């Protein structure tokens, strides 16, 4: 699946849809495919303060566990309850309905664009 050009990416295979001081965060199609069938998602609570680079959640598949790293330092403003009750959304629509959390942040972090991320994954 092509990596959408309107998104920013991290080396931890997460994507961000940045809108001013807010961003929607999910994992990339590449990450979802590597994880396999996602069966359980553990997300931080709304209002939680998060620090860039730290683990704030888990994405569990039938065969492995992926960690959700905070891509920015800021506050969790919303979590995707739909993906908690239907974890398969992460596989079915990683860049859309499978989003995980929304965050607000102060400093814009250094992120990859779609081309740089595509080069990173070699696909």
């Amino acid at each position, binding site marked *: 699946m092509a990596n959408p050009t309107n998104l920013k990416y991290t080396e931890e295979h997460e994507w961000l849809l940045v809108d001013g001081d807010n961003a929607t965060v999910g994992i990339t199609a590449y990450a979802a495919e590597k994880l396999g*069938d996602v069966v*359980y998602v553990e997300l931080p609570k709304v209002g939680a303060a998060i620090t860039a680079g730290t683990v704030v959640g888990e994405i*569990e*598949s*039938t*065969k*492995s*566990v992926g960690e959700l790293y905070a891509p920015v330092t800021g506050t969790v403003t919303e979590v995707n309850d739909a993906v908690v009750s239907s974890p*398969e959304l992460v596989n079915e629509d990683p860049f859309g309905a499978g989003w995980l959390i929304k965050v607000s942040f102060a400093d814009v972090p250094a992120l990859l664009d779609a081309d740089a991320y595509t080069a990173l994954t070699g696909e």
Partner: protein
Amino acid sequence: MSNAFVNRHIGTDSAAQAQMLKQLGYDSIEHLIEAAIPESIHVDQFRAAGSSLLPEPATERETIAELRELASKNTLRRSLIGQGYYDTITPAVIKRNVLENPSWYTAYTPYQPEISQGRLEAIINFQTMVTDLTGLSTANGSMLDESTSAVEAMLLARRSSKVDSNVFVVDTNTLAQTKSLIAGRVQAVGIEVVELDLAAGAELPNAFGVLIQYPGANGQIWDPSAVIEKAKAAGAITIVAADLLALTLITSPAELGADVAVGSSQRFGVPMGFGGPHAGYLAVRAGLERSMPGRLVGVSLDANGEPAYRLTLQAREQHIRRDKATSNICTAQVLLAVMAGMYAVYHGPEGLKEIATEVHERATALAAILRAGGVTVTHDNFFDTIHVSVPGKAAAITAAAKAGGFLLNQVDADSITISVDETTTPGEVEAVAGFFGADAAYQVVASAVPATLVRTSAYLEHPVFNTHRSETSMMRYLKRLADFDYALDRGMIPLGSCTMKLNAATEMEAVTWPEFGGLHPFAPKEDVGGYIELIAQLEKWLVDLTGYNTVSLQPNAGSQGELAGLMAIRGYHLANGDTQRTVCLIPSSAHGTNAASAVLAGMSVVVIACDEVGNVDLDDLRAKIAEHGDTLAALMITYPSTHGVYEHAVPDITAAVHAAGGQVYVDGANLNAMTGFARFGDFGGDVSHLNLHKTFCIPHGGGGPGVGPVAAKAHLAPYLPGHFAIQNPHHVLVEGDTVSTVTHDGAQISAAPYGSPSILPISWAYVRMMGEQGIRDATASAVLAANYISKRLAEYYPTLYTGENGLVAHECILDLRPLTDLTGVSVDDVAKRLVDFGFHAPTMSFPVAGTLMIEPTESEDLDEIERFINAMITIKAEADAVLAGEWPAEDNPLHNAPHTAASIAGEWNHPYSREKAAYPYADGLDAATRTMRVRSKYWPPVRRIDNAYGDRNLVCSCPPPEAFEN
């Protein structure tokens, strides 16, 4: 000697081996081994040939006679010791059809669910039995023993509790072996134990968890619900250690408010066996499932949308989560859990209640007789155990009872507990009362269960517990489930890293003899002379084969041996004042259990890189050793490596660690590649665990029991597992030609002093019948078979890693990734297609994702090896056909595998024939063989199982019959 056991154990004869060697380009098996195993580690470099302490091999008949002789040195008295171990009646139909049936005991852990539906159903019966009796929502597929289960529950409580405290409260009336095990384990993980008399109203401190034995170790039944409520209100996780038989009569832990229940299912038809093996249990309330340790069977759907069982929530486990796993334990006690579950199936809820009622009747009658005789019975409320106060006379009474054939539990100089069981007769009750000077006649008296704790809730209402009352029905149910499964009695189980070799009938013979099965783990030393002799001999032989100085047989699983070994290293560093030595180096290729065990031994894990050929990266190792300096505690390596290769640099690796003050742990998982030829102790190992259920022939039991002895150099002996109740603290110490003894005083690691001794006669018999040369022949044959398969399949599937001279050790990793990239055919597809050919799949995606690891062992004959090779070649041709576009990627024999009989019989609209689906044998097969294969075909009971569905929709107890309606 034509009837030598070695020729029965090894599958390939000399003609077959000559043919295999020719293929490999070697003129003798000796030359092959010389080329494969580095000379620098060969045992002959370290000691004179012929100095082995192993006896010359005995025949099968001679071995049985020697075992009979050892058995006769054990004395069977009626044990009324209790304390978690009770005599029980194993229904003969279960003994013959499960315990003595290779269809059950030679199966592997059910990782391939399509060929494991029988034991998965049996385990889910066990889980349902435990959840019903405890009232909790989810039980796992068994734990190693009750005390280990209590430790696991404590760790679960710490993970799950939100309380900011490192305090764990243990009620004082808890089994001594559980208290001792907990005490030995907590220091390494930073937990503080506080022991309180909760029944007496002790105030709870701020704690993350509370453990209460119910009924108590002294037999008393009291209502802990107020304590539980208070503890939970303060945020603690509450754990009740409960007796399953008592729970048929008294209020369940869930109804008392408990979050977790633990215990043993031993008295459900599993002999005491001098301590084990038996199945412990662990159950949790809703919401704690993901924090559970251990294997868990759940319900999912197969490709037809029909219910099917498989292991669920595996992402909790150590092979995935490594140092973040919920537990280090891989093995369960499946065979024993199957027996306990079947005991409940056979007796049903009414039968169990009747047994419990009768046991309780014996206890109340005994209490009444004693009281009538003027003896003080301490408690009014009890189930099967009464606490008797006999000031100053406890020793004399216990001795008199022993002389009269009964074993009582002397608590101290002034008191005794007596536990009755389902075998106790009214006559025995009278006889026991007689030792106290009470002589009233047996009569039925009122219940001693408090009215407020009489169980009112139902249990075991599922049809499976209410159907098989006749022996005919039970026999057929057990046969039906056995027929669902693929075990060693059907064909090869080429699971890499698992060593699925022969479990010979002669080796199994003594397991069910009462002289080995009927002993209580705390029986007096003079009653267990046969066991002590057998254990001392086995200790000596294992030490001899590993190059260490001493060994503890106490760990009842490989993971626990590993933990015991790391705890020994920890104890050693602490004793030297090196408290800062806590870093454990582990290669990236290691099994996840290594990391999980290191964490439980209070160490932090630092990963060492592997080079491109799969060996430990020496530069990275040296850099990490330098970086961690005097905080280095240990290196854990597996030898031969998990990549199935003999690393030549191993002496350099161990020397570098020693030079930096670290200890070397060598994981013995792959010992079958070197036994007889090389020894861990010779090339720098300080401590290792062995898996008697791999190299030394204890059957896998469908996922346990295992035995994981920990062997060590003399300097670690004081820190090996000790036990307060051990009958013989003098363990064998071998130094050069000198055999003496040494005591082990480290932390207890299993509930019982010798772990699971009743299966030790299996390994004893194996070594006794093989001798040094036989064991060498076995190793060489195993290495030959692995190399033969690797070579024969090379042009179809490349072997990922090889050592010097292009040779592998006892297993080979076939790299399927090129095939998958090219054709889309996955490791799963190949594994499931092998089922259609009548094979158990090899190990999938370990240690490298996208590969298959194959270990044929020495026990398979060349015909079976060729059958496997031909199946793999045919599968490659099928994948090529997919690539060529002959079949679509989503509809071909690989993608649709395995094929059930029902799927063949139904409507057929696939682009390949039914015959191709079900009988995919190579065209060149001769007619007679083909006919035999077709007639004896193994049919999997279900189609491919959807793992994700079951993980997303968690159901871990027997599904209602309606679930099977279409």
